[in-house]
């Protein structure tokens, strides 16, 4: 059976530097696949090419049987691919609710008629006139947004109408994920969702991702926190310097000596420096 997402021979160069070289990757339905590797390995560049923000120099990207490597980001979103960003990009001056509702933009049919030329004009008129179906769709979406936000316990629900810029960093990243879920994606792409979060927050996020996976969501994850990667992933791809250096089940990858050398350094992070310190103090 064909995979949900298939990447073959992907390559991208910036000036003289190859950011991604001849990458093959796939995500099957219901899988959680992790992309790990040192900084500068090409992970976010790969994400950008999948989501349409960047165009590959070579290779193809196939999603649900469709070639998407030449499509615009808007078209790819409409096909059911939702992504978050490495440093978190929320709509800062908009409320939490507005952010989440915008995630559902591609799903609105009453509000956004798909007619080609008259479409925009019709959309404007519908916004001004607001017939009943539009109102109903909006109400249904607001209920759904509340359900999505409830997944985060009471972190976001009491702040429904607060502007996103007033939220803490961790909450902003949660809003970003809530927005992605509102798109009801077939593929969810998370770029370092726990960057900058303390261990408690990281554990909460990990539980959330595990729950989404349990519900059948297909997820492509970039992460540095290896414990999390090992516990959540069905399969792991390791990138270094733009090329894939290992792939497979988490255990297999963790024990691959090439991976350990290129990426992990020593198997015990930070302990070496720590031992030197203890010896001196």
């Amino acid at each position, binding site marked *: 059976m064909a995979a949900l997402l298939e990447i073959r021979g992907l390559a991208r160069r910036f000036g003289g530097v190859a950011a991604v070289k001849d990458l093959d990757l796939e995500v099957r339905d219901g899988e959680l696949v992790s992309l790990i590797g040192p900084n500068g390995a090409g992970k976010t560049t790969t994400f950008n090419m999948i989501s349409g923000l960047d165009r590959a120099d070579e290779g193809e990207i196939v999603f649900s049987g469709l070639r998407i490597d030449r499509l*615009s980001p808007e078209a790819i*979103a409409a096909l059911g691919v939702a*992504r978050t960003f490495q440093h978190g990009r*929320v*709509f800062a*001056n908009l409320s939490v609710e507005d952010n989440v*509702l915008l995630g559902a*933009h591609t799903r609105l049919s009453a509000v956004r008629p798909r007619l080609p030329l008259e479409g925009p004009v019709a959309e*404007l008129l519908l916004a001004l006139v607001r017939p009943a179906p539009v109102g109903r769709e909006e109400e249904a979406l607001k209920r759904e947004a509340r359900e999505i936000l409830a997944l985060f316990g009471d972190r976001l629900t009491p702040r429904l109408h607060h502007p996103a810029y007033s939220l803490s960093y961790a909450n902003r990243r949660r809003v970003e994920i809530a927005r992605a879920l509102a798109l009801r994606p077939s593929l969810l792409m998370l770029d370092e969702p726990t960057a900058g979060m303390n261990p408690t927050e990281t554990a909460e996020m990990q539980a959330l991702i595990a729950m989404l996976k349990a519900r059948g969501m297909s997820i492509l994850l970039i992460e540095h926190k290896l414990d999390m990667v090992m516990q959540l992933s069905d399969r792991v791809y390791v990138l270094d310097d733009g090329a894939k250096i290992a792939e497979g089940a988490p255990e297999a990858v963790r024990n691959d000596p090439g991976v350990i050398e290129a990426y992990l350094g020593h198997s015990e992070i930070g302990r070496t420096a720590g031992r030197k310190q203890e010896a001196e103090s």
Partner: protein
Amino acid sequence: MRATAQDREAALQMGVNVNAVNSAVFAIASALGGLGGLLVGMYYNHIDPAMSFQATLKGVVAQVIGGVGNVPGAILGGALLGLVESYGIAAFGTTYRNLFAFVLLVVFLIGFPNGLFGARSAIHTEPLVGTFIAPSRPVRAPVWLVAGATVAAFALPFATSAPYLLQTLTNAWLAGLLALSLTLVSGTAGQISLGQAAWLAIGGYASALLAIDLGATAIVSVPAAGLITAALGTLLVFPAFRLRGHYIAIATLAIGEIVSLVILNWESLTGGAMGLTGIPPLSLLGRDLDSNRAIYWTCLSTLAVLALLQARLLRSHLGRTLRAVREDEIAARSYGIGLDRYKALAFGFSGFVAGVGGAITAHLYSYLNSQTFDSQLSLLALTMVMLGGMGNVLGAIAGAVVLVGLPELFRVTAEYRILIYGCVLLLLVRFRPQGLLGTL
């Protein structure tokens, strides 16, 4: 200087006295500008206050051609502009002089955004928050207050028939239409537009020509002019949609000037410098509206209806989408929001509102020429919108009433008004960028 420009806070933490550096930059730039002005004056044996605006625009053109921050580019850009202008004048006549500058500007902005010599950088620095809007919670006026004020405004002509008061407020309502149009496109959608007066001109001329040449009555020609302005205006700005931030401001400024110059030069259609005379007054059901009261109510009702529609738009999903375009174009695109489509919608609706405003004005003045809607109006529009709060519908109207009404009340003459608008703008930007009623 480069460090300060690239990351002000990081430069501070390198020990750079950022304020001193910025002051030095302005000092050097001003000195060079002054020197240039001296040379121009000596060459033409003539100087006047109006020189500055044209010179500013030409400087911008030269810079865009050469590439921002590029010194040899600036020199070459200036030379290129001068040559094009000289040959153009020789070929077409002096009234076309400025047209070349602006057309060249627009061509370069859209075709060669980094200039002829600017480096093409593949590095895109990610903005933390990509917006010019000052974050604030808008002041929510209670419904009864707004309703009450509206009723009072409508009832005013019953309480008094002082012509001066009614005329002043009528002007304020018309200015309100201009403010509404700008606050939607620049406030809500985040597309800074500095050529808003051009939309008024298109609307005014469209309605006047429909009335004069085709005998259309106001009830037909005014909305029609609104639609024409919406379509034409959007078409003109469309190529600039790919531009970011302040470049779109420059592009709209240039487009505004181009429209004005085309109107000046297209004599067969617009009457050129002579303008259009004998524009019929507004009429409803066959009767001319010539009393102060009738005109007052017409303008107020138009403003009220369009303001209500715009407020409705803001509360809809479309309003939410426009604000997403303003906030973060990359995140917006990644969630299916087509930028061109929504920028076009914003310019379209705002073009309609401005066009209607221009059309009504034309019928009231009964005479139009290319100076009627000049760039000063664009500045007024910006000041009104900033005063009221970007994106804020009530704010736009409040800004219009304050900036048009108060100077009239205190009998401030026209020359001082520009001074006042400029000062108000400076004070706002420095002390209260979110305006009186807050950004939306």
